[in-house]
């Protein structure tokens, strides 16, 4: 059975691109979220194998969302998607429970590498 992914980013553009990369590699994108709050809610509802999480989002940011998701499910597997120049935030995200990160602009191979490593 293919692994399921929840893609969280406030830009439709980014969600579409990430979903394409993941689906082409055989993953099933079972949900998308455009704010941190929606991400938390959908995680609880869909219980995906993996979450990709943008850092800067309206409503609730990605780091707070990771914190809430890992509080709900300590085994949650979250990969952060950060932009250039957010290294400090990536550290916060890892401390909040994220397992790995990729930096935008995405290289498909790098995304899949991180995702597969996290899923193990």
């Amino acid at each position, binding site marked *: 059975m293919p692994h399921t992914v929840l893609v969280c980013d*406030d*830009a*439709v553009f980014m969600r579409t691109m990430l979903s394409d990369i993941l689906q082409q590699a055989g993953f099933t994108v079972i949900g998308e979220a455009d704010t941190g709050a929606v991400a938390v809610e959908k995680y609880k509802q869909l219980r995906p194998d993996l979450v990709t999480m943008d850092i800067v989002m309206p409503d609730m940011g990605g780091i707070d969302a990771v914190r809430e998701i890992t509080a709900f499910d300590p085994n949650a597997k979250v990969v952060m998607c950060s*932009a*250039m120049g957010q290294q400090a935030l990536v550290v916060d995200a890892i401390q909040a429970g994220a397992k790995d990160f990729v930096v935008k*602009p*995405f290289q498909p191979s790098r995304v899949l590498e991180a995702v597969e490593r996290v899923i193990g």
Partner: protein
Amino acid sequence: MPDLDLSRYLDLFVSEGREHAAALGAALLELDASPSSVDAITRAFRAVHTVKGMAAAMGFDALAERAHVMESALDPVRAGSERMTAPLLAHLLEEADALARGVEEIAHPVDASAATGITTSAPSADATGGADVPRTAGVDAERYVRVRANRLDALTDLAAEVDIALRALDRALPANARSAPDDPVRLALGDTLRAFRELREQILTTRMVPAGQLFSRFPRLVRETARTLGKDVDFVLDGGEVELDRSVLDQVGDPVMHLLRNAIDHGIESPDARERAGKPARGRLTLSVQREAGFAVVRVADDGRGIARDAVRARAIASGVLPSDAATLDDAALLHVLTRAGFSTADHVTEISGRGVGLDVVDAAASGLGGTLELRTVEGRGTAITLRLPLSVAVVRALLARVGNETYAIPFTHVEETLALPDPAEPIEAGAPPMVALHDRLAAGAPSPRRGSRGEGVTVRARGRRVTLVVDEFVGQQDVVVKRFDVPRGATIPFAGATVLADGAPALIVDVNAIV
């Protein structure tokens, strides 16, 4: 896995990019009203950040970099370690416009590839904002190449030099060769000149971009400005396909923006006031570009309240600009008063026009491009301000006039007619423009070379005024390549630049705006 086919995401990029650019503009305008709004700064930051990520993903590096720089400027304000200041906000608003323009240039790949970031005489900060060309934009992509702006500049400069050399060669042709119909040198030179003219035309054409690129930044600006001021405005764009030299376009953007802001702020009335005046509640604001006889005519027209002539006259008399017995001002006189630095009829400084922007700035920009400004206004009916500009700043068609030992170039933009001067004894025709010796205007204080002899005259028009300049003689007309020189800020000189004539002699280009 294979690389992503980025072209599939282009439409999405454009539509979402537009959304974020608009959100950014709206958030910045909100910050203008309440500089400490945490919500507005957060939204501005997020919009910029999202555009950055998307642009980087698409490989639009220039746009991504621009967004990155903006983000870095916004970040400390968002974090609370710095405060939003008026200069920073003004800068951010400009950058936001450039960002929106960058997205539009990507939306219209034809425009984008034509706009290879040419920034010749005035490399404005935003000129490279949209230099991204969709690399995988499917249609037409292979028909365009990106060219370094400085290579195009080099071509233009070289063409100018070849031009000068060919003209010198033409002059050096012996008289017997010139008159012999089948002289091989004369024929070959004729062919060369024709081919060269074509070549130069082509080189200049590569620098032309559609005015629509200038327009793309304005709808949002108009909408937001109107909203902030509580005005209801229909914005009409016309002539976006007319092509202008990129450097003209870059320099005309800000003046047009000021004219639009002024029209919304001071021209178009509030919906209530319009209805009381028997007009539709929604005002109409038009920005148009036309080509007229080798010039680009950019016009901003509104159907607002018009300019109150009597108020301007009273204000001008009170401030000593006009004598106390000054008659009612016609359009030309009105423009003349309004373009004096710092002159304003606004009763109070509003949020929008309070940036110290007056018609004087617009006038200076038009002059700097070798163009002119015209004004038409009818009280209660509206105002139209017209910028008449050369299609290209690199080359200007000029009348060459000799005064004493000097040759001066007078740009044709300003020339109405040339005339043989009447006998000084004859009375001057009523209504004729005043006559002014060019020498007196250019070299104040220096002795006049010779007086009393009959010269020739050229009637020029600028700032709504007409003057006949008296010179010794006309020596021809020529396309001259304008080499601008740096003038210290605040200094005024009567020259717009210098050029080199066919015989290799330098000539000064008269800044007609400065001498009428």
